[in-house]
C-alpha cells in the first residue's frame, strides 16, 4: 500500500457538498500537489487528511493505518500553513520544540533536534528571536523547521508561499524542493499557483468543484490535458485555444486557420479517425505559445510544421523571449518568439507552427478528442 490513500472521500457542510468523491493514491516519498482555482476544495481535502475536520464519508489511510477517527496529533503528520501560524509568545527555539515537549521528549533530545533542524534550514542565529522579529521568509523557514522536527511520515503544506513576494517565492520554492530531496518524506502540497505545481510535484491532482479532474505527473498533465480546464489552467502563458473548422481534403483532415488576410488549412497528421465525427464542424484547437515561433528554415516543410505569415498585433518583450500576439480565426493568439527574431508591433512576420503536441477539444463537452 502507498504512503497516502484517499478513498472516495466526500465532505458536506449541511446540504452543500464540497468534496464529491476523491480518490488519490501516492507512494512513499512522493511529492503530491493539489492544485486548482479558489473554491475547488483543495484546502478542505488537506484538512481531511490532517484530521482538522471530519470526513462525511470515505476513508483516508496514512501508510497502513486508517486514520478517519484519529485526531491530528495521532496521525503522525506535520503541517505548514499559509500564515505560518507561529506561536507569537515563544522564541523560534520554543516554537520548534513545542510539539516535542508535548510528546514528552527528554530535554536533551529536544535540544539536539532543534539544533539539527536549525542547521538544515540555516537559521541557527534566529533561534532566540520571537516571530515578530523575523521577516516573512524567515518565518516560513521556522514553520518548516517546526514540521521537520516532528519527523512525521507525512508533511502537509497549505499554500505556504502565497504570502511571500514574487522573488522570495521563487527562492523558497527551490528550498522546499531541496528539502524534499534531503528529507525524502511524503509531502502533500496545496497551491493555486500552477508554476509551483509544475516545478515541485512528482504527482499533480488538478481539482475543480470538489473533484479531481486529472491526476498524473507534471509532464503528463502538461502534454496530455484531459479537458479544456486542465489545459488552460497549467502553463504560463496559458495555452492558446483556436476555434477551427475541420476541413476534409483528399481523405485527410485539416484545420482552417484564418489570419485575417489569408485562410490556411493546416493538415492534421495521424489519428485523423478521431476527427471524422467533426468533419465540417468546429472544434477547439489547443496549441501552446512556445510551439509558435519564428520561421526556422530547416524545419519548414517537415511534417507537423507549418508556416503562415501575419501581422503582429501586440509585442510584449520579457527579456528572455518576446510574446507576440497575432489574430487567428478572430482570436488573440500568443506566440513565444526569440527576441532576436521578433519583429515589431504592426509589422508582418512569418510564424512557424509546431503542431506535434497540439490537442483538440470538443467545443461542447470540453473534453479532449485527440
Amino acid at each position, binding site marked *: 500500500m502507498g504512503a497516502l490513500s484517499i478513498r472516495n472521500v466526500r465532505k458536506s457542510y449541511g446540504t452543500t457538498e464540497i468534496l464529491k468523491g476523491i480518490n488519490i493514491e501516492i507512494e512513499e516519498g512522493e511529492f503530491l500537489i493539489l492544485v486548482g482555482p479558489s473554491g475547488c476544495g483543495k484546502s478542505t481535502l488537506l484538512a481531511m487528511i490532517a484530521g482538522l475536520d471530519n470526513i462525511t464519508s470515505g476513508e483516508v489511510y496514512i501508510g497502513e493505518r486508517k486514520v478517519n477517527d484519529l485526531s491530528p496529533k495521532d496521525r503522525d503528520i506535520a503541517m505548514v500553513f499559509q500564515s505560518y501560524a507561529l506561536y507569537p509568545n515563544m522564541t523560534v527555539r520554543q516554537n520548534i520544540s513545542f510539539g516535542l515537549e508535548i510528546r514528552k521528549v527528554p530535554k536533551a*533530545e529536544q535540544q539536539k533536534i532543534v539544533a539539527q533542524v536549525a542547521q538544515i534550514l540555516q537559521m541557527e542565529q534566529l533561534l532566540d528571536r520571537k516571530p515578530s522579529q523575523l521577516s516573512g521568509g524567515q518565518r516560513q523557514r521556522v514553520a518548516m523547521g517546526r514540521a521537520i522536527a516532528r519527523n512525521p511520515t507525512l508533511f502537509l503544506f497549505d499554500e505556504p508561499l502565497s504570502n511571500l513576494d514574487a522573488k522570495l517565492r521563487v527562492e523558497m520554492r527551490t528550498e522546499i524542493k531541496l528539502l524534499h530531496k534531503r528529507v525524502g518524506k511524503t509531502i502533500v502540497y496545496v497551491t493555486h499557483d500552477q508554476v509551483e505545481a509544475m516545478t515541485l510535484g512528482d504527482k499533480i491532482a488538478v481539482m475543480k468543484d470538489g473533484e479531481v479532474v486529472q491526476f498524473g505527473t507534471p509532464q503528463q498533465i502538461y502534454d496530455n490535458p484531459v479537458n479544456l480546464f486542465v489545459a488552460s489552467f497549467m502553463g504560463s502563458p496559458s495555452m492558446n485555444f483556436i476555434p477551427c473548422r475541420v476541413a476534409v481534403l483528399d481523405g485527410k483532415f485539416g484545420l482552417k486557420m484564418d489570419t485575417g488576410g489569408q485562410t490556411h488549412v493546416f493538415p492534421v497528421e495521424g489519428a485523423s479517425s478521431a476527427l471524422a465525427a467533426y468533419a465540417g464542424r468546429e472544434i477547439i484547437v489547443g496549441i501552446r505559445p512556445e510551439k509558435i515561433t519564428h520561421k526556422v528554415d530547416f524545419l519548414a516543410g517537415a511534417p507537423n510544421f507549418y508556416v503562415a505569415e501575419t501581422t503582429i498585433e501586440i509585442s510584449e518583450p520579457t527579456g528572455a523571449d518576446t510574446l507576440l500576439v497575432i489574430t487567428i480565426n478572430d482570436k488573440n493568439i500568443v506566440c513565444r518568439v526569440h527576441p532576436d527574431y521578433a519583429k515589431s508591433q504592426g509589422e508582418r512576420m512569418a510564424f512557424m507552427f509546431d503542431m506535434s503536441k497540439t490537442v483538440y477539444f470538443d467545443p461542447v463537452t470540453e473534453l479532449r478528442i485527440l
Partner: protein
Amino acid sequence: MLASPPSAVDDTVRKPCRLSLSDRIETWLPKIILAPTFVVTLLFIYGFILWTGCLSFTTSRMLPNYEFAGLSQYHALFANERWWVALKNLALFGGLFIAGCLAIGLSLAILLDQKIRGEGFIRSVYLYPMALSFVVTGTAWKWMLNPGLGIEKLVRDFGFHNFTFDWLTNSELSIYTVVIAGVWQSSGFIMAMFLAGLRGVDDSIIKAAQVDGASLPVIYWRIIIPSLRPVFFSAFMILSHIAIKSFDLVMALTGGGPGFSSDTPATFMYTFSFTRNQIGMGAASAMMMLMIVAAVVVPFLYSELRSSRRG
C-alpha cells in the same frame, strides 16, 4: 538522518481505532466551559425577565402572590400621575442628555483632532469623570447647585444680587440639574469615541477633497462628519442606555425630588417595589423600561446586522 522522536504511530497502533476517552472529552470541553455561563444567562437573565413579567400580571403588593390580574397593574401604572412624570422626565432628560453629550463630545473631538500639544493630558482630563460613580458625581453637583451656598451664592457675591439658581429645590426645574450633572460625566466618553472615529477616517479621501478645493470647515461638515455615522449610532445607543438606566445619579442628586418631580422610571420602579410595597406595579414599570430599551436597541441592532451583511 534526524534523531527521531517517539513516533505518534507507536501509541496509536496499540489503541483501538475509535475515539479515545480523552479525545471525546476534548470535543465536549468547549461546551462544558460555556455551560455555566449558559445556565446563568438562561436563568438569571431570561428566566428572571419572564419572572418579572409574570409578577407584572399579578396582584402582588408587599409579597409576591401569583393571582392572575390581567393587565390591571399596567392600567394602574398608566393611571398613576407619578409614572407620567417619570416618563416625561425620561424624555426630557434623555433628549437633552443625549443631544448635549453628542454635541459637546463631537465638538471637543474635532478640536482635539487639530494636532494639539498635550492632547493626551487634555484627553485624560475630559475623560476622568467616567471613572467616578454617579453617586459621587451626584453628590458633588448637589453641593455645587446648593441654593444658598453653591453657585447661586457665588454669583450673588459677584454682585448679581438677584441671581437665583435654586433648580434643585424647584419642582419645575429639578430634572434639568440631572441633565447638567449627567452631561458633565459622560460627554468626555463620547468625545473619546468620536476622536477614535475621526482618527479612523481615510486620509486619501480628505486629500482628494483638498485637491477639489474644499476648505477645512466644509471638509468637516460634508465629508468627515457624515462618515462618522456608525459612531453616532453607537454613541446614541450607549447614551440612551445610560439615560434609561439612570438611577444612581437621580438618587444622589435629587432623590427624585422635590416630591417626585425629578423621578425617572428607574427611581419609580425602585420606590414602588422596595419602599412602597407595590411589587406588582413595580414589576410592570420594570417591564415597561425593558420595552423602552428594546424600542431603542432593536432597530439599531437590526440596521447594524443589515449593514454588516451588505458590507
